[in-house]
């Protein structure tokens, strides 16, 4: 979930609200952290991952910063997990930022969005960041698929980019966000081929969350999800671009075997985080 419109942060740093509206193109009202926790309670979600995006080079903005993520996690340590974001364009500074986020702030993973952050996900700078994340034991969640704003080129969001990366670096754990929509089949083939690649359900693109899930089921069939993706598909919401309880209702209603649904909602995330 993106931590850009949490009221505690936008109240303390109004520029974050401006950036969320003008750069992240998210114009709903900020909600207090209690709304997020209320949505988690409403659908029985125990823990959530808070995501920043460091767009220092591309947009001169951190949405939010790693220290702001850490401050939010401190408020609800049992329920929130913080990820870091660094700017691969910053070279060695990106590596020291990542070490700081891990060692000082206790952040557990890395979030990257190559299109928004304007870096080549297969480039040398990005590889250095991936390798540092692997050394620190931080799994990497990468944005794949559509970005609604046409401010950014979406060539860097293509899921197939991660096939070669995952093959060449089998110890680095990637999660392809948003099913890679609309390149769902590309994201699925990369996930099937590479045991170090996961896929998440975050976001709704073809209508409501239920309509989006129906579309994806019609593309993949329940058999493929149950028998092939069942151990590497992770529930994600994309809050606040969609309410967590609505995504949860859609995913938990998928016509899948109970044990597979349990893994999607719990076990696979723990495996990605290295907790199982």
């Amino acid at each position, binding site marked *: 979930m993106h931590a850009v419109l949490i*009221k505690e942060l936008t109240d303390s740093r109004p520029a974050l609200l401006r950036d969320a*509206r003008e750069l*992240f*193109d*998210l*114009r*709903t009202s900020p*909600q*207090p952290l*209690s*709304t997020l926790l*209320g*949505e988690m*309670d*409403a659908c029985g979600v125990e823990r959530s991952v808070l995501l920043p995006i460091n767009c220092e080079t591309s947009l001169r903005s951190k949405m939010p910063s790693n220290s702001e993520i850490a401050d939010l996690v401190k408020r609800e340590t049992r329920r929130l997990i913080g990820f870091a974001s660094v700017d691969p364009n910053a070279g060695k500074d990106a590596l020291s930022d990542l070490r700081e986020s891990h060692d000082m702030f206790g952040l557990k993973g890395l979030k990257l969005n190559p299109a928004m952050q304007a870096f080549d996900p297969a480039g040398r700078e990005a590889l250095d960041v991936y390798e540092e994340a692997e050394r620190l034991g931080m799994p990497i969640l990468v944005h794949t698929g559509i970005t*609604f*704003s046409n401010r950014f080129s979406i060539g860097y969001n293509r899921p197939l980019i991660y096939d070669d990366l995952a093959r060449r670096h089998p110890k680095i754990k990637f999660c392809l966000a948003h099913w890679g929509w609309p390149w769902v089949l590309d994201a699925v083939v990369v996930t099937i081929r590479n045991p170090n690649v996961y896929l998440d359900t975050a976001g*709704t*693109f073809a*209508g*409501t*969350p*239920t*309509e989006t899930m129906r579309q994806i089921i019609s593309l993949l069939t329940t058999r493929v999800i149950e028998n092939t993706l069942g151990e590497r598909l992770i529930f994600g919401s994309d809050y*606040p*671009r*969609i*309410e967590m*309880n*609505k995504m949860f209702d859609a995913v938990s209603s998928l016509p899948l075997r109970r044990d597979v649904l349990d893994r999607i909602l719990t076990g696979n995330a723990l495996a990605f985080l290295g907790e199982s």
Partner: protein
Amino acid sequence: MNSKKSTELIRITDEVRRAVQMTGLKNGIVNVFTLHTTTGITINEDDVRLEEDIARFMVKLVPEDDSYAHHRFFRKDGRMAVNAYSHIRASLLGANVTMPLQDGALVLGSRQNIYLVDLDGPQARGLVVQVIGE
């Protein structure tokens, strides 16, 4: 006000009384207005089971699983619009209620309670209470 469910009736009579008392006005009319398009304001009997009935009936009356024109990428918000049913339910309830103020007290029947009805919760919601009088 903070709702905790996707559809929830929240009793706000005490909060409205406190807001009215802060004005110092004794006689006139009180208007309670919601600032949101997926909430409604209504007055009804303060019975928990009836609150459940109203919430359930709103869900049944305007189903979530229908083909709504509103459901598309909504550039104004920067996200998909997915809650036409919440907006429609809110329109059925209305955005405000008005009641008399007499001798500094709300004029309400013995069974009447003012409710904020959240139709797209959980969320933090804002209300306006305006008093016209003397």
